[in-house]
Structures are given as structure tokens and as C-alpha cells.
């Protein structure tokens, strides 16, 4: 039989069982929509990670204490100077990080601050959008001034950051003048932090609790690994108590990889859920197809009596199952498109893509073929006499 006529007959049969067909497709709709959304979330997550790290220099290496809290043998400014002697390292800057109450007017906020050497800004792509950056003079004169990350400035001013420039804020009760606001970097450890000069941070805010991190800039991407080895050698030398073991040495490249990895894990997890949904819906299709075959046993007998071959019956029921699942797939993809705004509302990054559409449809068709085959084969294999006798 030609496909066109076969489809006509199948559609007549499907139309006859509209309600049942719709209920059967529900599972496929959910499964396909999930697959589509999983791919969208995966793509969105990937895009977000890439955006976050796009402005971060891949030659950046972070040397930090392996454990939080008090360290017996902390890093010092001297370590930074030692690192800079390596031919693989362009700069090494100590950074003090802390958290505390940041107040502006009557707005109080628990936030982070970093005390840096002014040179650090240039080597870490920190540029100001309002006001001015920290200057060497501020460091030598121990000026109590601060430059804010873009996100922090937004939070403190309710989205009107420029007005805070020239105003005073207090960090842990100490007064600082805001002299500028950085451009957005895409890394929350910068964008949500307040920056002050190193000497001031050490003297007024952290004192003996000062436990710096050293941010190292390798001379290039290719020298990152050698720079890491040089750093470890220096640490073994200068921190004989615990050697380099007590510090973590991380490069931005591996941080990027780790972030991408976790986004991928999330996608795989959701994909697994989607596949489970499709398997369950496939079993539903199989069930319905068995009922359909049973119901039409007599018709199958008639078809065989007038000359239908096994493959005619098989393809009729298989195509019926595939049409049901494909219809579910198409509706599922459309439902997925409509769910994207919901994800956006919950701030889940998501990016609809043609891959998601194709993957969803392919999986829905495969579900139909896989779970429709056995009932269809059962139908094709019926004995014509017994089928004709079936009431």
C-alpha cells in the first residue's frame, strides 16, 4: 500500500480515538518538553559561564590558604615579591579579603571587601565607569577611600550607582569615601565587592587577622603551568612549616573548566529525568497500542482476508504509534518554548536552540518506534482465522 493511503487510514483511526490519543501523548509531551528545556538550560548555563569568565584573564593564578579561618603561617607581601622574581610571572599582588557590614545612609548590607595594591587593577582588567580608580598615592598616604564593584554599587543605590561617588560609606564601622565604581567584570567576587588600598585594609580592618591571597599573573597562557610550579617551589622554600601543601594554587582556566563541568553535570541530570519520563510515557504508548490491537483484532482479520501482508499490518500500527508520539513531541517542544519565560522568571539561564528541538523530536519518535514495535508485531502476527472469529 502506498504511504499516502496508509496515512489516511491511520489518521481516520487516530481521529476516532481522539481522547485516548491525547491522553497517551501527555507523557510524551512532558518528556519532550523536558528534553527541550534541559538543552535550553544547558546552553543557557554554558553561555552564562562563558560570559562570566570572558573578561577574566586566563593567565590569572590564585594562591590562597587551603583552609578558611586562621592560618598559622599566612602568606605575606614578601611572598608576592618572591613570586615576581620568576620569569614566568608578570605580576603577583597580595589581596586581603574580608566580609563585614557595609553601610550607606540608612542602608546596611553584609558584604565583602578586598584590600588591594592599586597596580592590581590594571592587571585584572578592572576599569572604572564612574569616578576614578585607586591610585598609588592612596596606598602610600593610606587614604581611606573605596572603589565599589558594579553590582555592589547597584545594590547600595537601588540601581542608580553614579550618585554614590563622593559619598561616604562605612565598612565595619570605619568610614570610607567612595571615589569610583568599576565596570562589570562578570565575576561576583569582583562585582559584589568593595575595594580599598592594601595598607588601609591591613591597618584598619583586618590587623593581625590579615590572611592574604596572592593573585598572580602569568606572562602568558602557555606559562601558567610553569608559573604554578615556580610558585610551589617558592612556597616550599618560604613556608617551611607546612610547605606549599597548606595553600591552594588555582588558575582561572581550571576554574572555568570546573564551572563548565558543573553546568554539564546539571544538564545530564535533567536529561536523565527526561529520559525516565519518556520511558514511562513509552510504556503508556505500548499499553494503549495493545488495547488498540486487541480492539481491532477482527479488523486485522478482515484486512488479512482481503490480502494485507504482514508488513502492511506492521507498518500500519507502527506508524500509528509513531504519529502519536511525534504529535506529543511537537506539542512538547511548543510547550517547552512557552515555558522558557517561566525559567527566566526563576532566573534560570536558558537559551532555546535548534539542538533542543531536534533532540526532543528524535527522542519522541524513538519512543514511538521502540514501544510501538512489539504491539504492532503482535498485530501483524495474528492468525487470520482467529482474528476473524474474535468478538
Amino acid at each position, binding site marked *: *500500500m*502506498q504511504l499516502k*493511503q496508509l496515512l489516511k487510514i491511520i489518521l481516520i483511526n487516530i481521529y476516532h480515538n481522539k481522547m485516548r490519543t491525547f491522553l497517551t501523548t501527555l507523557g510524551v509531551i512532558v518528556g519532550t518538553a523536558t528534553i527541550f528545556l534541559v538543552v535550553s538550560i544547558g546552553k543557557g548555563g554554558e553561555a552564562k559561564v562563558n560570559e562570566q569568565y570572558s573578561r577574566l584573564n586566563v593567565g590569572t593564578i590564585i594562591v590562597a590558604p587551603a583552609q578558611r579561618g586562621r592560618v598559622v603561617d599566612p602568606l605575606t607581601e614578601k611572598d608576592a615579591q618572591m613570586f615576581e622574581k620568576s620569569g614566568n610571572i608578570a605580576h603577583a599582588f597580595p589581596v586581603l579579603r574580608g566580609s563585614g557590614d557595609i553601610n550607606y545612609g540608612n542602608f546596611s548590607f553584609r558584604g565583602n571587601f578586598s584590600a588591594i595594591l592599586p597596580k592590581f587593577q590594571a592587571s585584572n582588567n578592572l576599569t572604572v565607569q564612574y569616578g576614578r580608580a585607586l591610585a598609588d598615592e592612596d596606598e602610600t598616604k593610606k587614604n581611606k577611600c573605596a572603589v565599589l564593584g558594579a553590582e555592589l554599587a547597584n545594590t547600595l543605590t537601588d540601581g542608580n550607582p553614579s550618585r554614590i561617588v563622593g559619598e561616604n560609606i562605612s565598612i565595619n564601622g570605619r568610614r570610607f569615601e567612595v571615589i569610583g565604581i568599576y565596570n562589570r567584570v562578570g565575576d561576583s567576587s569582583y562585582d559584589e565587592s568593595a575595594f580599598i588600598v592594601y595598607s588601609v585594609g591591613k591597618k584598619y580592618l583586618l590587623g593581625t587577622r590579615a590572611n592574604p591571597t596572592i593573585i598572580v599573573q602569568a606572562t602568558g597562557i602557555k606559562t601558567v603551568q610553569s608559573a604554578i610550579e615556580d610558585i610551589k617551589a617558592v612556597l616550599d622554600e618560604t613556608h617551611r612549616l607546612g610547605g606549599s601543601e597548606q595553600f591552594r594554587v588555582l588558575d582561572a582556566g581550571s576554574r572555568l573548566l570546573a564551572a563548565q563541568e558543573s553546568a554539564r553535570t546539571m544538564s545530564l541530570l535533567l536529561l536523565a529525568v527526561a529520559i525516565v519520563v519518556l520511558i514511562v510515557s513509552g510504556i503508556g504508548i505500548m499499553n494503549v497500542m495493545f488495547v488498540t490491537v486487541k480492539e481491532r483484532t477482527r*479488523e486485522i*482479520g478482515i484486512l*488479512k482476508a482481503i*490480502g494485507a501482508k504482514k508488513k502492511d499490518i506492521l507498518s500500519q500500527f507502527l506508524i500509528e504509534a509513531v504519529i502519536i508520539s511525534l504529535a506529543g513531541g511537537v506539542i512538547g517542544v511548543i510547550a517547552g518554548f512557552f515555558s522558557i519565560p517561566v525559567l527566566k522568571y526563576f532566573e534560570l539561564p536558558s537559551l532555546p536552540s535548534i539542538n533542543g528541538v531536534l533532540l526532543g523530536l528524535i527522542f519522541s519518535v524513538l519512543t514511538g518506534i521502540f514501544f510501538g514495535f512489539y504491539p504492532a508485531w503482535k498485530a501483524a502476527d495474528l492468525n487470520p482465522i482467529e482474528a*476473524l472469529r474474535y468478538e
Partner: protein
Amino acid sequence: MAILGPSGSGKSTLMNILGCLDLPTSGQYYLDGLDILKAKENQLAEIRNKKIGFVFQKFNLLPRLTAVQNVMLPLLYRGVDEKEAIKLAKEKLDLLGLGDRCNHLPNELSGGQQQRVAIARAIIGNPNILLADEPTGNLDSKSGKDAIEIFKSLNKQGNTIIVITHNNEVAEQAKKIIYLRDGKIYEHN
């Protein structure tokens, strides 16, 4: 030809075997020189499609297809183009006086009309043999007579018609009657 016998005599089994729907447990059956017992399933399907037309007691029309769709179905399985099949199906329905019922579903037709649709479906492929199992069993006597008349005129046009029945009146219209009892032919004339 009529095959006459009481119920349980094996008439339907004989018809199923003749129609290549069932295989005998013993014996031999040659149709146009082909050993049916050794034929493959696809070959049997093809024989049923081309050489045999069935008319069942219960009409056995597909309930969701219109009269014309029911009639053209055997041609579709043969690979005939849809337009051609529709044309031929309408011709046959016209011939049997159902020209104005082409697009009706079976349950919109009377018993006699349904039987005529079934006959149209059975003869559309110009089969060598037309097998009719109690064709008048579910019909009122008027429709039954009409059906017999149709068979007679088809027979005049050269079709072999085998009617299976337990009704003497029907059987007597045939040129040849085979009496069947307990699975055995015990008389024929």
C-alpha cells in the same frame, strides 16, 4: 456451486481452507497449480488479494471507512493508485445499485446495503473464486433474494461462486451442490 450442510459439519472450515485463511491438518490443496501447504505467508496474502474474494455472513466491513474506501481497500494492498482505485470502486458500487451511498459509513447503511458493499469489495479485484459464507444469514428475505440474484448474474459473467449455507432454498439456486456432514462430503450433484 453451493456447499450445503448442517452447523458443525465443517462448511466454514472448508471455506477457510479454500480461501487460504487456514491450512488443513492433512491432505493437499492445489490452487492454480500452487501447493498451498508449502506456500509462504506473503504468497498466501497475495492469493487472497488477487484470486479470492470473500463475502462474510457478518459483512465484515471496516466500521470507520466509507463504503467506497472499504471497496477499494483490496486494490490499495495491490499497489493500485488511489484515484484509479476510487474510480473502480465507484463503478462496482454503481453496478450494485449503491452509487448514491459511496461516502456512507457502514453503520449508516441497511444490512442488505452492507452486504452489497461487501460483495463489491469481494469482486473488485476480479478474483477467480468468490467465497460466500452464509451470505443471506443476516439479511431479511428480500435482501437475501437480491444477494442471490447478484451472485447469479456474476456467475453468468464467468465468475466461480462458492456459496456456503445450511439453507436448502439458497443452495438449490446453485448449478452444483455439495452436501457436507461431519467433515465429509457424502453427496454431490
